[in-house]
């Protein structure tokens, strides 16, 4: 109880004082996760829309794979990226290992399947509603995809939010490929793991509270956007 109180107090102190270390960690966490989510959306949304709007042989298998990939353990992704980027790996020459770029890559590989699978589910319902209209216009596959993506934009915000939640809270992959290097690749989750292992629980809890606050703020923003869209019948 005492620890929780002091953690809350410390978190409040850190935020109010604009602690430089904290801001740096929070800034890097947001930069890595937001970039990874943007890249994941750029990959996952068109894939989800394409699978939702097209009928082809092996489609059920593709959907099964997409759904299965949602459950990929972050440490496995981290290990795979590590093997590719390590000095002896095929992409070692890029020298991305233990850099924020490697962390973005790992999180993108983690989040893109989530975005693709969830958007496929959302867009398939919309496609069922629009399919006769699309057919009557003889729309091409890409026109269908772009129409679906535009019309489901507010639902897809929720999908990207799920991806952001996964990315910002993820620790295993960024720890392996980022190395948790102070002032370079240290993000909130790896800091929390480190402080916990050092026994500095108030600091770990303080960072955890900041992480929760970020998640709350982002969720509130997206919910506000969605509810205003629903009010104007665009969602």
């Amino acid at each position: 109880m005492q620890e929780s109180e002091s953690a809350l107090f410390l978190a409040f102190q850190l935020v109010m004082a604009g602690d430089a270390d904290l801001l740096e960690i929070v800034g890097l966490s947001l930069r890595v996760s937001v970039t990874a989510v943007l890249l994941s959306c750029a990959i996952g949304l068109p894939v989800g829309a394409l699978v939702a709007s097209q009928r082809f042989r092996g489609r059920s298998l593709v959907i099964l794979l997409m759904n299965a990939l949602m459950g990929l353990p972050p440490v496995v992704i981290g290990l795979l990226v590590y093997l590719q980027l390590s000095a002896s790996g095929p992409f070692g020459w890029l020298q991305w290992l233990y850099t924020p770029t490697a962390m973005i890559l790992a999180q993108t590989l983690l989040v893109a399947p989530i975005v693709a699978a969830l958007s496929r589910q959302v867009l398939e319902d919309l496609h069922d509603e629009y399919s006769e209209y699309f057919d009557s216009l003889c729309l091409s596959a890409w026109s269908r995809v772009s129409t679906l993506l535009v019309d489901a934009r507010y639902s897809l915000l929720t999908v990207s939010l799920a991806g952001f939640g996964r990315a910002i809270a993820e620790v295993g992959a960024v720890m392996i490929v980022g190395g948790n290097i102070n002032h370079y690749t240290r993000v909130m989750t790896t800091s929390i793991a480190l402080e916990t292992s050092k026994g500095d629980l108030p600091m770990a809890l303080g960072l955890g509270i900041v992480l929760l606050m970020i998640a709350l703020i982002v969720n509130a923003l997206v919910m506000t956007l969605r509810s205003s869209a629903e009010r104007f019948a665009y969602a």
Partner: protein
Amino acid sequence: MPESGSAVASSPFISVTGVSVIRNDQRLLDNVSVDLGDSEFSVIMGSNGAGKSLLMRVIHGLVAPDSGRVEVAGSVNPSGVTTRLHQAMVFQKPVLLRRSVAANVDHVIDSKLKDRRLQRDSVLDEVGLLSLAKRPARLLSGGEQQRLALARALALKPSVLLLDEPTASLDPASSQLIERIVQKVHDAGCKVIFVTHDIGQARRLADDVIFMHKGQVVEHRPAGQFFDSPASDPAAAYLRGELYV
């Protein structure tokens, strides 16, 4: 004896020959043959499940027949693609995009920005929705939504306009408005094929009537003849408001 393909003029513009659609061993369309001219206002009538909407979808190329063929302007289009490029269809329940009224029309117009705006405003004006151009389409009333679907179809500048019970769930005033617009489009030279249950509406609009029963065209005659002396028992019963089994 079915009386089909007899109501139309010289050279048919749309020719449906021996079309059957079979689903789960049921013949939803059973060897349907009908010829339609390029200028008549053709109305398809029949009780629920007669195959009216399905026949319209086959003509539009949305459903491929299991046998038979559809010719439009002399060319056979098994895939329906070429057919659909010259046709536009309005569904019973309008499918509207989650966008504004104007953006819904823009979606089907393939032209430069300025031309697009002119074309869009012109069709919206035609259906009386220009003042609502910026409103979200889904906030329109049922009648307005159907007029928007009609505007979008007209924006395609079709030579054939197919309407599948467009006034089925509308009040009389909205139905009348739709009828007036469709009649005007027909007067401007567009071939119209219209599915309806409403006998009064069919009397007002039709040049020729195709009457369907259990997946077959049992009658196709000029409207006056059809309403004055229906030649088949199912059509006669339908016009009397009786159930024909």
